[in-house]
């Protein structure tokens, strides 16, 4: 369960004397559903909202709590609970090959390098991408990269997955594959997307506009609201 209480995020203006830029304002939410989608136009505040959930961004006002842990005061614990998937997996993969990247994730939980490498290969096999274990991350397809990023995040068994537009760089086949993976995950998944069909797999949809949550409902009415907003 994630709770946001009267959250505001603002950044100072570039020019002195100008008002601060508000990225998100007046956000109070309890996020408990298994699948939650966040939709909104570019620059509406979707990414800011998601980044609040694992402490990548801290609120200027208000609090964000994950299973009761404050994202500011207890950031380390929160990041252990919340795995974050970026839009571009290439930005998230820190090592040169998939098996090495997952080994890096496992360093905090599995002792011994050989044990970690074996576990990393197992995890890649389970995900159906064992054949790319020693390939360069730069030589993988977008879908393979996204699956490696997801495997790397899941390796440390977080209880919540937050994904910022995970389908944006994927073709139709890889998007469908990712939808299947998300559907099978036991963890709570909160994701942002521009893909309204993908958003329909959620139990709840939040519509963000101008830094505010303007609709919060089941997929059909929330997405209808969003389509009207964008018309």
């Amino acid at each position, binding site marked *: 369960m994630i709770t946001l209480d009267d959250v505001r995020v603002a950044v100072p203006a570039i020019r002195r004397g100008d008002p601060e830029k508000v990225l998100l304002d007046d956000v109070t939410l309890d996020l408990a559903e298994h699948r939650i989608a966040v939709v909104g136009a570019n620059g509406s505040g979707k990414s800011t909202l998601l980044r609040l959930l*694992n402490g*990548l961004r801290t609120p200027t006002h208000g609090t964000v709590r994950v299973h009761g842990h404050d994202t500011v005061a207890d950031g*380390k614990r929160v*990041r*252990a609970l919340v*795995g*974050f998937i*970026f839009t*571009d997996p*290439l*930005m*998230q*993969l*820190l*090592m*040169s*090959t998939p098996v*090495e990247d997952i*080994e*890096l*994730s496992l*360093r*905090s*939980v*599995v*002792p*011994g*390098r050989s044990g*970690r*490498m074996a576990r990393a290969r197992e995890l890649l096999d389970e995900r159906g991408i064992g054949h790319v274990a*020693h390939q*360069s*991350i*730069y*030589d993988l397809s977008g879908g393979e990269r996204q699956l490696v990023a997801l495997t*790397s*995040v899941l390796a*440390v068994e977080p209880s919540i997955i937050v994904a910022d537009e995970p389908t944006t760089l994927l073709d139709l086949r890889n998007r469908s594959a990712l939808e299947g993976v998300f559907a099978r995950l036991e963890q709570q998944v909160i994701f942002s997307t521009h893909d309204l069909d993908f958003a329909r797999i959620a139990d709840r949809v939040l519509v963000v506009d101008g830094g505010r949550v303007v609709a919060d409902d089941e997929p059909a009415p929330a997405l209808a609201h969003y389509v009207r907003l964008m018309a």
Partner: protein
Amino acid sequence: MNVHASLLGLYQPQDGWLFRLGAGWKYLLLLALTIPALVLWQWWFTLASLVLVLALLGSSGITVRRALNIGSMLWILLAILAVYQVVTLRFDQAVTSPGNVLLAVLASRMLTLTTSTPDLLDALAAGLRPLRWVRVDPDQVALAVAIMVRSIPFLLGSFAEVRDAARARGRDGNVLSLIVPAVVGAVAYAQSTGEALHARGVVERGSVDSADPPGRGSVRG
């Protein structure tokens, strides 16, 4: 960007003796191959060292073609170095200057082509352990080096993209139009990498193998 054509190459597990040799020994071998050539600065010694490093790589199944696949940018740089020395009539320097650069690159590739990043990371962290006395965390330094190695192909690829974009707009003659976007891109990339480290909690969680709790002795403020 094909990483195989990048400066340091990519580790692919094989059976050769260099693959089985401990990373620490390979670091020593790297120094033993490069330092004498740099100290002596003789064209014949540089050539002999180049042949030796290629022979060592070949003895572990890495072909001359793969060993020398260091990317066109570096070959151009080496050629410029050689031509400059020839123009200034220092013919022996035309071999030693680019030859020693190539030797250092090939000796480094001997390490990176035959050692997985986790092995490199652990060996480097072990070698840097005395730095704990000056409050430097060796695990974090080793991680920084590993990320640097992974970033080289990205940065080279991003420079090539900027060059193509400038060429498409007919501005490839303007050096500033190449440098500024490349630098801005590199800064954005560094920021993204920092965010990824933060999001994945890699630094703060540390390693279960580490003797000290994560963060202790760190250079972080």
